[in-house]
């Protein structure tokens, strides 16, 4: 089909012909077209179906407020539902399909639903579908769900990449229409840092859609010149295709820049960039949105907003119809008639609801003052409209103008409420704007061009001097003030037919009246009950007329009735853009231990621990499954020596004259008298008395300690220590710095650990006398490398930990393995570590889960009675100390061959399994290769006095129930002889 509606003029490049497909049919348009303008140029009026009644839908607007013309763009994994054809820039090869119909767009089988509409009024579904009960999920809801929704996702991973970034400026100007350009010129010339953002791909706003004159030039030319000047200023950043979609606290804005949506392929470039703009000041120049008038069957394709019709004619060189009728309640609508007539488009009639003198006369056009359109006809597009006086007018395009609503959206993102301005019958920005925001132009209710230009200029100059700059000396751009009279006329009461308010969600005037009748009278109730304004356009064109009708029903004024709340985003933002690069493996950064490379080369499997990747076990050739590897690692460690990278434990260097005092206040146990060269286990409570972390602290010097924390809590402990240091005890001289990343630390455990350590440290006496259990030293290893050595044990074996600077960590692992070769040293991972600590009865993350007390954990002996410490007072509360409290004990299966399950609950034998009889839970389990059976740690009421009792470990969720015996948690070497060696 040829471009039958293409006329002369516009900002399209006729030398570039673009081919595109709509529902498989090939069409042509030009560079500079939107999909909507190209469809109109080709005479394609029907472009979609409405949500509920599957009514035919055409293009209604020429901007982002479009409720109707939603299409599915592109194909395959690039398929993009609900794209507004009015903002989709045409490119060669564009593919689009219409949405929400079964069968073809022309013959939608679901269109029959429209005949049922009497039974499908607002909220009908709340009153039915309740019987029989089981039918909701099985029958009714699947049907409703299937018929709801518009476009489809491809169900495949989004193949595009997205990025984010940060921008800063003195003034953010939102909107590059006349007011925005005028403001940008003033600000830019003054030298302040300006960002000028606009959602359109051609800047200039309505200047490109109208036939205005600015400074004696055609408006579009003036805009182009202004933009050229702005582009030449180094302090101005012009961002086209960029929507400022959210105004957040303190001058932070969300901005979406569309980089490749207008191209056939993104070719690896980010499709869109989410910018977080921080602006000292902002100037909102977002313009205004035209609203329709509701009348019978006002939803047919070919019925459009009058301003949009001008846009198609003036900017795109497209006449949306051959016989255009204008229905208006204001002066502005008349310009549609005059502009079109000038381009040679035939105007059938001008119907003005006001009983005033005609603004102008047009040859051939019938002028009906005080007129109303009550109905229209035409199955897939308007063919005639009927006036209240019964007159029928043949027309293929009805241009409707109900006046203009300032685009106050962003002014309300921080709960500001707009105010009613009755002379323009519209809401304008209220008093509570986001901090440091000013509003100019039609967005501020200044509906004429001259005022818009002047306000942009003035506000920008004021802002510039607020910021301490001097405004450049130039005057505001000048234009005439066009006629802009308007009357508050919202719907044609004489219409007997359904009159649409929300075109996408099929909400009609009757629905609003029904909501009123049923008591849903607050605007929020109205919205929620009827779904008005909840479609993809968020009711940009629908809300004001609807609430005016509700105001009429309730007898209140429009400002008393109020608006619903405007919330981000201004226009919808793809989730992919909001996520940026943070997806897949890049969702969060990794932390790698210094021996990661060695581990990878030696068969390690890795496990995520927070952001760390830790070696879980090291598989050797021939091993069948992970248990084989773990059993071997445990056995070889217990029999000789094993090496484990424990770098991930938090390490905090603590220095200061009062460091000992500080530690004494944050640990439950005494720290004042720890000698230099010794390590002590320490337990920390939250102030509420619950245990939350433990570790060891070594005293390296008089005023120098190094603390270890658990891997998981490293950051939290540091934060809480800083809180204690700065907020609770600011009089102490103590300083904290994390050295977690600086030191590669290795545990060397097993009966041969001393021999191995002796081989690598430089000349330190490692005898039990010289370097006993819980000793520490700063020393050197491998001939002069700085190191820290600790004799501490998590496995229960004689054990050491050696730390060397992180860069040497990978090499250190090799060195330790080499030095340990003659002892058959084994590298072990977190699984073996876990097995050994369970065998030894040490609590770890599963036990220190933030719900257990020191008493529960069997660590009551570490709670000093002689001093205060964080958590002391509240740890003494009755419910935390009573007889019946949970205690950490060991468990073994009565039938030794059975595996225990972590997460099982304990029920006394013979008791019914229910919440009341729940006595505790199994926190950690392991297969102990040392004992040859499964062992567990867990909490059970009064566990410490129930040794030997058999209870049921209840776990229907996993593994089933088994009988277990309560035993000491210290399965191995309860006296601790091995570690003291």
């Amino acid at each position, binding site marked *: 089909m040829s471009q039958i509606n293409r006329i002369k003029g516009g900002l399209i490049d006729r030398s570039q012909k673009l081919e595109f497909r709509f529902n498989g049919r090939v069409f042509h348009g030009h560079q500079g077209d939107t999909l909507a303008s190209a469809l109109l140029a080709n005479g394609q009026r029907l472009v979609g179906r409405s949500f509920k009644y599957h009514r035919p839908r055409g293009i209604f607007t020429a901007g982002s407020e479009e409720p109707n013309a939603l299409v599915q763009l592109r194909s395959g994994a690039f398929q993009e539902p609900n794209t507004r054809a009015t903002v989709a820039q045409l490119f060669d090869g564009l593919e689009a399909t219409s949405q929400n119909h079964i069968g073809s767009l022309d013959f939608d089988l679901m269109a029959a639903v429209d005949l049922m509409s009497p039974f499908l009024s607002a909220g009908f579904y709340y009153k039915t579908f309740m019987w029989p009960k089981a039918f909701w999920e099985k029958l009714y809801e699947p049907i409703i769900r299937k018929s709801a929704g518009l476009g489809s996702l491809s169900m495949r991973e989004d193949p595009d990449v997205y990025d984010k970034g940060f921008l800063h400026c003195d003034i953010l100007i939102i909107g590059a229409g006349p007011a925005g350009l005028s403001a940008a010129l003033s600000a830019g010339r003054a030298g302040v840092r300006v960002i000028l953002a606009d959602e359109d791909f051609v800047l200039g706003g309505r200047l490109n859609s109208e036939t205005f004159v600015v400074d004696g030039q055609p408006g579009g030319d003036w805009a182009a010149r202004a933009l050229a000047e702005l582009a030449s200023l180094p302090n101005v950043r012009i961002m086209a295709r960029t929507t400022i979609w959210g105004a957040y606290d*303190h001058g*932070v804005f969300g901005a979406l820049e569309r980089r490749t949506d207008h191209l056939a392929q993104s070719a690896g470039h980010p499709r869109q960039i989410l910018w977080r703009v921080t602006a000292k000041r902002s100037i909102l120049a977002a313009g205004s949105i035209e609203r329709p008038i509701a009348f019978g069957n006002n939803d047919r394709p070919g019925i459009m907003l009058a301003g949009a019709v001008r846009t198609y004619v003036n900017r795109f060189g497209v006449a949306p119809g051959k016989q255009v009728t204008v229905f208006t309640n204001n002066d502005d609508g008349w310009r549609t008639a005059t502009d079109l007539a000038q381009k040679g488009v035939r105007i059938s009639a001008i119907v003005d609801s006001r009983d005033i003198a005609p603004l102008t006369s047009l040859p051939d056009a019938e002028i009906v003052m005080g007129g109303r359109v009550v109905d229209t006809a035409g199955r897939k597009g308007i063919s005639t409209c009927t006036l209240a006086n019964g007159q029928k007018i043949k027309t293929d395009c009805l241009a409707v103008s109900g006046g203009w609503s300032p685009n106050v959206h962003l002014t309300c993102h921080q709960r500001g409420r707009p105010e009613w301005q009755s002379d323009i019958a519209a809401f304008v920005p209220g008093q509570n704007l986001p*901090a440091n925001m000013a509003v100019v132009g039609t967005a501020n209710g200044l509906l004429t061009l001259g005022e818009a230009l002047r306000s942009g200029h003035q506000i920008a100059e004021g802002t510039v001097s607020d910021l301490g700059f001097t405004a450049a000396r130039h005057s505001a751009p000048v234009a005439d003030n066009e006629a802009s009279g308007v009357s508050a006329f919202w719907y044609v009461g004489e219409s007997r037919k359904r009159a649409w308010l929300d075109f996408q969600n099929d909400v009609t005037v009757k629905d609003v009246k029904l909501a009123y009748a049923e008591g849903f009278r607050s605007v929020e109730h109205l919205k929620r009950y009827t779904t008005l304004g909840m479609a993809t356009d968020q009711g940009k064109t629908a809300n004001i007329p609807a609430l005016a009708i509700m105001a009429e029903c309730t007898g209140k004024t429009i400002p008393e009735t109020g608006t619903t709340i405007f919330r981000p985003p201004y226009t919808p933002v793809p989730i992919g853009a909001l996520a940026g690069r943070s997806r897949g493996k890049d969702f969060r950064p990794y932390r790698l231990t210094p021996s990661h490379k060695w581990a990878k080369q030696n068969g390690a499997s890795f496990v995520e621990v927070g952001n760390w990747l830790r070696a879980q076990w090291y598989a050797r050739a021939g091993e069948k499954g992970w248990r084989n590897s773990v059993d071997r690692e445990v056995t070889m460690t217990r029999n000789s020596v094993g090496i484990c990278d424990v770098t991930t434990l938090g390490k905090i260097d603590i220095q200061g004259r009062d460091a000992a005092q500080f530690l004494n206040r944050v640990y439950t146990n005494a720290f004042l008298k720890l000698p230099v060269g010794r390590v002590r286990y320490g337990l920390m409570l939250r*102030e509420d008395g619950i245990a939350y972390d433990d570790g060891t602290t070594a005293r390296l010097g008089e005023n120098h300690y190094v603390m270890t924390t658990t891997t998981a809590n490293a950051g939290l402990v540091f934060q809480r220590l800083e*809180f204690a240091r700065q*907020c*609770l005890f600011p009089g102490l001289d103590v300083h904290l710095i994390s050295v977690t990343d600086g030191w590669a630390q290795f545990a060397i455990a097993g009966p041969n650990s001393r021999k191995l350590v002796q081989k690598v440290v430089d000349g330190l006496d490692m005898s039990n006398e010289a370097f006993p259990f819980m000793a520490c030293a700063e020393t050197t290893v491998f001939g002069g490398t700085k190191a820290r050595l600790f004799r501490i044990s998590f496995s229960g074996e004689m054990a050491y930990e050696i730390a060397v600077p992180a860069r040497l960590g990978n090499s250190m692992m090799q060195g330790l393995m080499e030095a340990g070769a003659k002892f058959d040293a084994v590298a072990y991972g977190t699984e073996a570590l876990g097995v050994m600590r369970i065998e030894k009865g040490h609590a770890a993350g599963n036990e220190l889960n933030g719900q257990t007390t020191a008493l529960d954990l069997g660590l009551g002996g570490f709670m000093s009675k002689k001093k205060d410490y964080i958590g002391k007072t509240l740890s003494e509360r009755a419910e935390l100390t009573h007889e019946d409290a949970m205690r950490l004990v060991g468990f073994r299966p009565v039938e030794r061959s059975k595996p225990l399950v972590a997460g099982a609950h304990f029920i006394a034998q013979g008791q019914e399994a229910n919440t009341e009889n729940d006595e505790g839970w199994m926190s950690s389990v392991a297969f102990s290769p040392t004992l040859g059976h499964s062992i567990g740690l867990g909490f059970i009421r009064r566990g410490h006095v129930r040794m030997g009792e058999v209870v049921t470990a209840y776990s229907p969720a996993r593994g089933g129930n088994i009988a277990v015996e309560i035993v000491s948690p210290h399965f191995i070497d309860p006296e601790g002889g091995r570690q003291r060696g």
Partner: protein
Amino acid sequence: MIIDHPLLGPRDAAEFTYLGDATLINRPDPAAPDAADGFYEYLYLRDNPAGEHNELWYHEQGDRAWLVVSRNTLTHEITKVELARDVALRLGRDR
């Protein structure tokens, strides 16, 4: 949100973590006869005002300072930011 750090200037609140009411600085005297009640009220009860609120923020992705920020909980307007340490010293916590 932007927090105007008293030492480092305006920083995005995303660099900070939040703790709560700045009264958490006023840890009670554990030796007081009513220490149990004192700690209960200190740790658990909050004014939770709708309006001006002094609160503790920690510059985790920055200099690790604890700040006392005076912020309106209705408007989010920040009127004052101090180092928590200075506040604590002023309250005599160095004694």
